[in-house]
């Protein structure tokens, strides 16, 4: 897999072709050649492979139809550092038995019955040198989730990659707009 993607494939890929996912870049930043191999692998992955979720969770049904707020499943997005991935018990509240006919929901019900935690693939992982807390942005600055995570509410299938590529430039633009601190050591640790 040649490390440089051809321009044609780049056009097909909505997300910026050249920005490897945050995780890969952070790994490369923080540790030597082994990390550079990771960068290459992630670079390749960024172009083709998708994040595979164990269950094709349908956001639209939950958010739009059933009007469930983001923070019910992402519990600590209001007062914590990370938004938090829903635990099995959160799903169990409604999925003791199947509510609909979809095969994906059957998987959830089986998992709840077996008490087996669902291991969701992580889409967003900030580099270790970034200080970011959800509570500061969601609660204090009252920023809508869509701003950074794109319109997840209307996704019927789990997106393969971040809908909105998180990059430092995006953060700085927002900070400039809202007059938030642009000191390097406000976010770098």
């Amino acid at each position, binding site marked *: 897999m040649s490390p440089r993607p051809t321009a044609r494939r780049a056009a097909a890929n909505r997300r910026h072709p050249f920005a490897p996912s945050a995780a890969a870049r952070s790994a490369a*930043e*923080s*540790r*030597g050649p082994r*990390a550079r191999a990771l960068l290459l692998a992630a670079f390749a992955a960024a172009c083709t492979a998708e994040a595979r979720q164990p269950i094709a969770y349908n956001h639209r049904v939950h958010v739009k139809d059933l009007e469930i707020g983001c923070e019910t499943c992402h519990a600590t997005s209001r*007062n914590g550092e990370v938004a938090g991935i829903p635990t099995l018990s959160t799903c169990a509240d409604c999925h003791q038995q199947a509510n609909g006919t979809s095969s994906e929901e059957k998987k959830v019900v089986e998992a709840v019955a077996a008490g087996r935690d669902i291991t969701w693939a992580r889409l967003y992982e900030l*580099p*270790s*040198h970034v*200080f970011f*807390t959800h*509570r*500061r942005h969601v*609660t*204090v600055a009252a920023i809508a989730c869509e701003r950074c995570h794109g319109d997840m509410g209307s996704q019927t299938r789990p997106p393969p990659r971040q809908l909105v590529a998180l990059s430092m430039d995006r953060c700085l633009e927002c900070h400039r707009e809202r007059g938030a*601190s642009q*000191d*390097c*050591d*406000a976010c*770098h*640790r």
Partner: protein
Amino acid sequence: MNERPKAGPRWGMAIDLDRCTACQACSTACQMENNIPPPTPEAAAQRRAIRWMDLVPYLEGEFPRVKLRLLPRPCMHCDNPPCIKVCPVGATVKGQDGIVAQVYPRCIGCRYCTTACPYTVRYFNWYEPSWPGDLGQALNPDVSVRPKGVVEKCTFCHHRLQKARDLAAAEKRELGPGEYNTACAEACPTQAIVFGDLDDPHSEVARMTRSPRAFRLLEDLGTEPKVIYLREGEA
């Protein structure tokens, strides 16, 4: 370039050498707090041990008239820092807190700032940081592990300021006194190291700055250091 945007408090430190017993709890607390890789015998022999807060020994005279003074030396976080002027990529900057920060993902490791600093407070990661066995379990989640090839230095534990300010913002209040304290000031058994806002006349550190015993290291260089020492002895 070095005029200070007056927004946040002007963080500074006072070290009373009359109370200090040179036990080096400050340098160990700093190394544990900031995930500094533990030095090895080889690194120490090659003078590559990283000690953000180091003990500087002044030895004068011959036996029996010998005078030994031991002085804990963090980064001075100067108000007119010679290191920031020379960084070619803006990897070391001074924000509104007056803290000279080191941005590890941007540093290209040219080490120009290490030669420009008259206090030699800057250290370099010569090797990939390593923690033998499972010593790596004891790493502080609030501080990033610096990769090989970048410069690092005392940051006045500004990750604690980030967390304190985040908490204060979440509780919709100003940053209280004493909420943000450095690891060395917290660990010092004799309370010789005091940290706080130099511009707040009522703070302990400001009071110590007004002591007749107060002096600054290499004051004549015009770097305006924000670490103030108090001489030992009478007065």
